C-alpha cells in the first residue's frame, strides 16, 4: 500500500522529545556518577510499575503520532494522489474500531441501541423497539439467549490468550536475564523476590490479560459502548491519550529553554539582568492563568482563521491549535520553574569552585554550561514529571471553559464536556463519563506515582510546594 507520511507539528515535537530522551539516556549511561539517582529510581517498586503502565500509554500515543495519507488508485496520469483523510498507525491497528459506528448511543457490550425506535418489520408493520446494532454483537443469531454466554466465552478466551502471551513474554525476559547473569531462572527469580523486577513482571502479565480481554471483546462488541453519533467510546478514549500526552510533555518541552536560560541567567548575573527577568516573570505570573490562556487561544484562533490556506486538512488546523495551547500553557507555567532555577543559581554562584573559575577568567557562558546547568538539571527533571499530571488535568478544565483544544480533537476534556450533558438524560448515559474518568485516573495516577518516585530518587530533601 502506498502512502504519504504526514508530519504534524506535534508529531515532530513528540519525536523530538523521544530523540532527546534516548540520546540523554545514552549520554547518562556513559557517566556512572549521573547514573546513581537513576539506579535509585529503578529500585522503587511503585515507580517502576507506574512507569510500565505509563509506557503503555506512551506507546499508544506514539503509534497515534505516526500520521499518513493513503494513496488513491492511480488515475493513469502518473501522478500519485492521496486521500484527504489523515490516519495514524494506531487507527490502522485498531481498524474496525474506528469505522464501525452505530447510529447513536449503545451501552457497553450491548447488542441493541439504547433508545427505542420505530422499526419496520418484514411484514410491513411498524413497531417500537430497541433496534439491533449494526456491528455490536452482529454475529449473534438469538441475542436474548446467546448474549451473556458469548460475552463470557469471549472474555475467557481473551484473558487466556492475553495471559498466555504475557506469560510467554515474562518467561522470555526471565530466561534471557538468567542466561545473561549466568544463573538458573529459578534462582534468578528467587533472588529478586522483593525487587521491582518481579512486580513489573506481574504487572506485565496482568496488563497482557487486560489487553487480551479488551482486544478480543472489541472484535465483536463496543466494549465501552458508543457515543451520541455511534462512535466507539473505547476508540475515542484511546485517541484522547495522545492529546493528554502532548499537553503534558510538549508543554514542558517548549517552556524549558526559556525557563532554563532566563532562570539561570537571572540568578547568575544578578543586577539589571535579574531585575528585567524578575519583572517579566512577575508580570506573567500576576495575570490569572486562565485569562491569559483564554486571550492567547482566542488570538490564535483569529490567526488560524485569517490564514486558512496554511492547512490542507482539519486535523492540521486542530493540531496547530493544540501546539499553540501547549505553547501558551508553557508560557503561563514556566514562571514557577524559572523562579526555582534562579534561586538555585544564586546559591550555586557563591560556591567556591565557581568563584574560582570566575577568578581564572573562564567565560560566563562556559561556567553556565559546564557548572551551573548540570547542577540544576535534577530540578528541571523533577518539575517536568511533576507538571505532567497537572497539565493533563488542566486540559480538561480549559476545554470546559471553551479555551482548550479544538472541538474536533479527541481529548479527555472534550469527552468529559460531551458526557456531562449525558448525565441529564433519562435513562442516564454513564459510560462515556466513566471511560474518561478511568482512563484519566489511571494515566494521572501513574504519572503522579512516577513523579513521586523520581523526586525521591533525585532529591529526597527537595520540598516543593506549588506543583500538583
Amino acid at each position, binding site marked *: 500500500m502506498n502512502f504519504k507520511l504526514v508530519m504534524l507539528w506535534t508529531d515532530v515535537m513528540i519525536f523530538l522529545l523521544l530523540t532527546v530522551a534516548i540520546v540523554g539516556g545514552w549520554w547518562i549511561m556513559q557517566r556512572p556518577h549521573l547514573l546513581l539517582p537513576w539506579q535509585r529510581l529503578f529500585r522503587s517498586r511503585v515507580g517502576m510499575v507506574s512507569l510500565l503502565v505509563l509506557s503503555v500509554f506512551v506507546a499508544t500515543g506514539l503509534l497515534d503520532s505516526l500520521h499518513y495519507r493513503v494513496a488513491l488508485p492511480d488515475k493513469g*496520469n502518473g501522478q500519485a*494522489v492521496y486521500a*484527504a483523510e489523515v490516519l495514524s498507525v494506531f487507527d490502522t491497528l485498531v481498524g474496525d474500531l474506528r469505522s464501525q459506528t452505530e447510529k447513536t448511543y449503545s451501552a457497553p457490550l450491548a447488542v441493541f441501541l439504547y433508545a427505542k425506535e*420505530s422499526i419496520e418489520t418484514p411484514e410491513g408493520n411498524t413497531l417500537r423497539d430497541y433496534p439491533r446494532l449494526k456491528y455490536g454483537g452482529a454475529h449473534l443469531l438469538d441475542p436474548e439467549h446467546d448474549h451473556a454466554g458469548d460475552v463470557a466465552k469471549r472474555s475467557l478466551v481473551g484473558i487466556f490468550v492475553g495471559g498466555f502471551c504475557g506469560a510467554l513474554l515474562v518467561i522470555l525476559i526471565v530466561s534471557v536475564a538468567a542466561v545473561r547473569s549466568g544463573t538458573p531462572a529459578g534462582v534468578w527469580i528467587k533472588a529478586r523476590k522483593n525487587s521491582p523486577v518481579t512486580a513489573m513482571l506481574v504487572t506485565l502479565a496482568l496488563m497482557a490479560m487486560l489487553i487480551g480481554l479488551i482486544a478480543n471483546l472489541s472484535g465483536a462488541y463496543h466494549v465501552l459502548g458508543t457515543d451520541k453519533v455511534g462512535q466507539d467510546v473505547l476508540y475515542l478514549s484511546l485517541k484522547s491519550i495522545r492529546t493528554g500526552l502532548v499537553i503534558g510533555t510538549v508543554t514542558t518541552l517548549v517552556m524549558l529553554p526559556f525557563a532554563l536560560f532566563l532562570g539561570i541567567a537571572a540568578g547568575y548575573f544578578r543586577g539589571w539582568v535579574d531585575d528585567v527577568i524578575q519583572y517579566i516573570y512577575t508580570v506573567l505570573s500576576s495575570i490569572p492563568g486562565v485569562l491569559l490562556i483564554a486571550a492567547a487561544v482566542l488570538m490564535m484562533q483569529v490567526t488560524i482563521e485569517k490564514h*486558512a490556506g496554511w492547512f490542507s*486538512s482539519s486535523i492540521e488546523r486542530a493540531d496547530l491549535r493544540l501546539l499553540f495551547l501547549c505553547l501558551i500553557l508553557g508560557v503561563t507555567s514556566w514562571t514557577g520553574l524559572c523562579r526555582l532555577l534562579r534561586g538555585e543559581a544564586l546559591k550555586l554562584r557563591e560556591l567556591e569552585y565557581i568563584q574560582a573559575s570566575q577568578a581564572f577568567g573562564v567565560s560566563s557562558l562556559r561556567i553556565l554550561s559546564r557548572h551551573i546547568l548540570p547542577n540544576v538539571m535534577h530540578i528541571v527533571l523533577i518539575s517536568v514529571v511533576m507538571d505532567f499530571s497537572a497539565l493533563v488535568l488542566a486540559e480538561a478544565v480549559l476545554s470546559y471553559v471553551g479555551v482548550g483544544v*479544538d472541538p474536533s480533537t479527541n481529548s479527555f476534556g472534550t469527552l468529559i464536556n460531551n458526557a456531562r450533558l449525558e448525565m441529564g438524560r433519562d*435513562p442516564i448515559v454513564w459510560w462515556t463519563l466513566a471511560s474518561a474518568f478511568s482512563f484519566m485516573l489511571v494515566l494521572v495516577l501513574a504519572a503522579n506515582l512516577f513523579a513521586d518516585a523520581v523526586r525521591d530518587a533525585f532529591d529526597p530533601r527537595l520540598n516543593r510546594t506549588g506543583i500538583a
Partner: protein
Amino acid sequence: MKLLMFIPLFLLGACDGGLWNNPYPANDKNVGDKGQSVFYTVFTERPKHLDPAQAYSENEYIFLAQIYQPPLQYHYLKRPYTLIPQAASEMPNVVYLDKNNRPLPASAPAEQVAYSLYEIHLRKDLKYQPHPAFALNAQGKPEYIGLSKEVLSKYYLLGDFSHTGSRDVTAADYVYQIKRLVHPAIHTPISGLMSEYIVGLKDYAVTLQKAQQVMQGQYLDLNKYALDGVEVVDAHTYRIKVYGKYPQFAYWLAMPFFSPMPAEADQFYAQDGMQQHNLTLDWWPVGSGPYYLSENNPNQRMALSHNPNYSGEVYPNEGEAGDREAGLLADAGKPLPLIDKVVFSLEKETIPYWNKFLQGYYDAAGISSDSFDQAVSVGVGGEANVTDEMRKQGISLSTSVATSTLYMGFNFLDATVGGDSEKARKLRRAISIVVDYEEFISIFANGRGVSAQSPLPPGIFGYREGESGLNHYVYDWVNGGPKRKSITEAKLLLSEAGYPNGLDEKTGQPLVIYLDTTATGVGSKSRLDWLRKQLDKINIQLVPRATDYNRFQDKIRRGDTQMFYFGWNADYPDPENFLFLLYGPQGKVDKGGENASNYSNPEFDRLFEQMKNVPNSPARQLIIDRMLEILRRDSPWLWGYHPKDYVLHHSWLHNSKPNKMANNNLKYLRIDDPQRDALRKQWNQPLLWPLWLLGISILASGWWLWRILRKREEAR
C-alpha cells in the same frame, strides 16, 4: 464530631418548611402566603437590552413583551397566527394614497400605491406602571426630574425612589417611540429597514444627528423635532405613513419596537448620575403591559409583578379546534393576568435546569438542549410524548413547529459549490441527498423537528403538506410519505457533476468541502462528526471550520465560505420573511443584506417582488409554488429542518400552549399553587440513610483510631 454533624442538619431544617433542596430563598414563601400565585421559570442568558428600541432577541422579549404594549398582538390560541388588537382598540385602518396623497381604492394595483396610511386608535384605559419618573411633588411638578448628581448618588435601584406615579398612555407616546428608533445614541436593529418604509424617518435621523452634535451629549428632546410620516391625531389616535404597499407592516406593529414610550422616562434616565448606577431605560423599563419589572438582578434572578394599573383584557373565548378539549378555554372571559408574579432564575447550565424542573421547582421547561432529548420519546407514528416515568409525575408536553429554519447554505460565489452551472447544481443536489436530516433530527433533536422541503416552515402561508409540497430533487414520494433518494442516485449526480467517486475527474484529487460553523461549544463535536460521516457516504471530505460567531459573520460578509451552518427565526409569520433570505438584492457580500448564500436568480427576484405585495390568496400560493420550484432546482441551501418547540409542563400549570410569535403569553397562564406545594413536598424528601451512614462511619473510624492510639501510648 457528633455535634458538628448535627449543626448543618439543624440549620437546613430551619430554613424552609422541610424541603432542603428548595432553590428559592425562604422569604419567597411569603409571596405564596398572601394568596398570590407565582410562576417560576428561567432565563438562560442575561438579557442585553430591555429598551424596546434596542431589544431584538428572544431572551429579551420574554421580559419586554410582558411589560410593553405595542398596538397589536398575536392571538394566543388561534392558528395560523392571527393579529388582533392589543393597545389598539381595533385593527388599524389602512388607506392607500397615490403620489399626490390622494386616496386610492383598496383594490388599487401595487404600482399605483405611493403611500399607505395606517391609522391606529388606542384603547382609552391604558395606564403606565407606577414609576418614579411620573411621581409628582406637592406642587404638581415632577419630583425626580432635574435632580443634581449629588442627590442622585444615593440611588442605586429603582426601589430607592420612595414615590411613584402613573399617567394615561397617549398616542404621543407611541409617536415618541417611533422617533427613538433613529435616536443617534440608540442602536435600533431595524432602524435601517424602517427608514426605508416610514416616510421621513431617514431625514429625521440626519436631523437628530445634527441636533445631537449641537447638544454635546445633553438630553435630546425628541418632541422638539417633528417627524413627517408620523402624526398624532388626538390623544388616542395616531397615523403612520409608509412608502408604497407594505402589508407586512402590520406585523411590525405587534413587536416591542412600536411600544409607547413616555418622554418623562427618557428625561428621568438622562439625568447625570443615573447611568453610573446602572439606572437606564435599557435596564429599567417603563411600560403599560400586564407586568412590570419588580426585581432586576440579571446575575441571578428577575421578577415581574402584576401591574396594578393594568386592566381591561380578558382570556380569549375562542381558539383552534381541539383547544376546548385540551382545557385551554376553561378560563375564557377571566380578567388577565391570571398569575400575580413571575420569578425568572438565571440557569445557564442545562443539567440543573432540567433537574430543578423534574423536582418541581420550575413550572415549565422549554426543551432547548441536547440533554433533554430523552425526556421525549417519539411514538410509532412519529408523534412525540413524554416518557412513562414523567407521565407518572404528571408532566405533559405541548409541541408546535417553530417559525424558524435551520439550514446549511452554499456560497454562490464559491467556485466549486456555487454558481449557476448545471454541474454545480448537481453537486449541491448530491450533497443535499446524502445529508440525512431525518437521522439528524432523530439523533440530535430526538424527533423534535420536521425536515424541510423549502425555506418555509409549516404554519407559514405557502407551505404545502404532502406530495405537492415535496422537494422532488431530494425525496421520492413512496407509500404516502417522503423517502430520501438513495446514495446511488447521489453518487450518480456526483459523477455527473465531475467528481466520480468523490475524485475530481480532471486532477484526480479528492473533493474537499469546507464547512463554516459557529459550533464551538459543548456537543458540537458530535454534530461535526456526524456531518463528516454523511459526506463520507459519497467520498466527499468535509472539513469543518468552527469559529466564534464574530469571525463567522465576518467570513459570511466577505463571502469567504463554501458551506455554512445558519438559521433564521421569523420576525413575523409571512413567507416574505423567509424568502427574502434568498432575494438577490439582499446579497450579503454586495449589499450587506441578509442573503448569506448570495443566491441570485432574476426570475426568483421578479416573483419575489410580485409576491411581497399580494395578500394571502390562491394567487399568492401559485407565485410561491413557482418560487419554491426554482429554489429546489438550484438548491442554494440544504433545506435542513424546522425545529419543533416543545414545552414540558407540570400538571399544576394550566393554559400553556407554545406560541412562537407571541411572546406576551405569561398573562394567560394559571397556576394551581396548593397542588404544586403538595407535589413538591412529595418529590423532594431528602434521602437520609447516606447521612447516617456517613456519620456512623466517621464516628466508628474516629473511635477506632483513638483505640489504636491508646494502645500505642500504653505500650510505650
